[in-house]
């Protein structure tokens, strides 16, 4: 599928730039050009398509669906719907308040809050482009399982008392009329949104691919296996911890991680790291403090963190 891009990258590397093939420099430059073109095409196409789908399933509509479902179905649906909903930390509070005040159970709300940032289209594109569809599928499936189970567990814990009391003082009618959209509006929306995201991530992606290309060309294969191979028990928890503060750079982190994986970091550790980068984010925790007590944030981070580590160990074991 990406063969024409490889031809183009070869042409640019060897003919236009005149770099001698089979050298370290050639390998790094070729890798950089190929990945950059591939990733940006994928980003554009997939974000655009997801945005069109999303224009039919805005969070406000999702809420109307979720407030009518029983809890287990609700957790599953919330997690699935979380995939297509973009997560921006500026919307975290209105999302949380909007769900809870419209009567969506807390556990269901958390399923959504976990799935939405963890399984996002930028991460998916990068996974698909750099690791292939199998790893992308494993990532989506384990992400969904973590979101569904964590939501169910939080629901069972009866932690409503750990939500700031003002949240429950208002209740709202979940059925509103949003400005209606024509197909042209939807295309405009999708186009604006795609542009918005690309503007936000392009530099990180380029830097990520750049460092990745350097690692690809210059570090020996298996260089990192001795530190972060599947035999090292501490690799997974370490990856999760390192991932927590990296949220805003998810777009740049994934190309980098892809190169690290090539040099011997095992796949489960890589998956755990990416999940931690996307799902556990320090800035999001700070924002959520406005609506819930620190203890609830810790419970939430703890449950998701354990889920991610389990996934990491599991795939280190399976994908040896």
């Amino acid at each position: 599928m990406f063969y024409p891009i490889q031809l183009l990258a070869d042409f640019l590397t060897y003919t236009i730039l005149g770099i001698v093939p089979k050298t370290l420099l050639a390998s790094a430059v070729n890798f950089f050009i190929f990945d950059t073109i591939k990733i940006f095409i994928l980003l554009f196409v997939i974000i655009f398509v997801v945005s069109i789908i999303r224009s039919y399933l805005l969070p406000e509509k999702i809420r109307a669906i979720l407030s009518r479902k029983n809890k287990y179905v609700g957790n599953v649906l919330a997690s699935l719907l979380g995939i297509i909903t973009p997560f921006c930390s500026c919307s975290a509070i209105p999302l949380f308040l909007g769900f809870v005040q419209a009567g969506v159970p807390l556990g269901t709300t958390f399923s959504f809050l976990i799935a939405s940032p963890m399984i996002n289209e930028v991460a998916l594109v990068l996974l698909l482009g750099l690791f292939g569809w199998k790893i992308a599928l494993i990532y989506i499936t384990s992400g969904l399982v973590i979101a569904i189970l964590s939501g169910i567990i939080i629901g069972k814990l009866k932690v409503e008392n750990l939500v700031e009391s003002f949240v429950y003082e208002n209740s709202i009618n979940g059925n509103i009329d949003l400005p209606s959209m024509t197909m042209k509006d939807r295309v405009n929306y999708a186009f604006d949104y795609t542009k918005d995201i690309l503007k936000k991530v392009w530099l990180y992606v380029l830097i990520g691919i750049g460092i990745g290309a350097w690692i690809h060309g210059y570090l020996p294969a298996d260089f990192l296996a001795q530190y972060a191979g599947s035999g090292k028990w501490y690799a997974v928890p370490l990856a999760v911890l390192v991932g927590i503060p990296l949220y805003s750079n998810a777009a740049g982190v994934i190309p980098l991680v892809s190169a690290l994986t090539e040099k011997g970091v095992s796949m489960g550790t890589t998956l755990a790291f990416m999940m931690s980068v996307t799902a556990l984010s320090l800035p999001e925790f700070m924002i959520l403090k406005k609506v819930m007590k620190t203890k609830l944030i810790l419970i939430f981070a703890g449950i998701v963190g354990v889920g991610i580590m389990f996934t990491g160990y599991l795939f280190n074991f399976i994908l040896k």
Partner: protein
Amino acid sequence: MKIEVIGSGCKKCKALFELTKEVSSELGINDEVIYSNDINKIVAMGIMQSPVLAINDKPVLVSMLPDKKRLKDIISKNI
């Protein structure tokens, strides 16, 4: 007429506020554009994303930073 940008204080919210001010003065609207960071207002409108552009308390644009031309269209359609 009341033109209001409601946001959580993020970069996108402020950018939308600035752009709305610019567009509304170009459209010859005399009323001042208001910026509010009262999230409860958004939630009470039934919306769950930020920022929101509301004209006379009716949301006309949600979670988007359109280009100037499109914002002009949206505002002139709703006044």
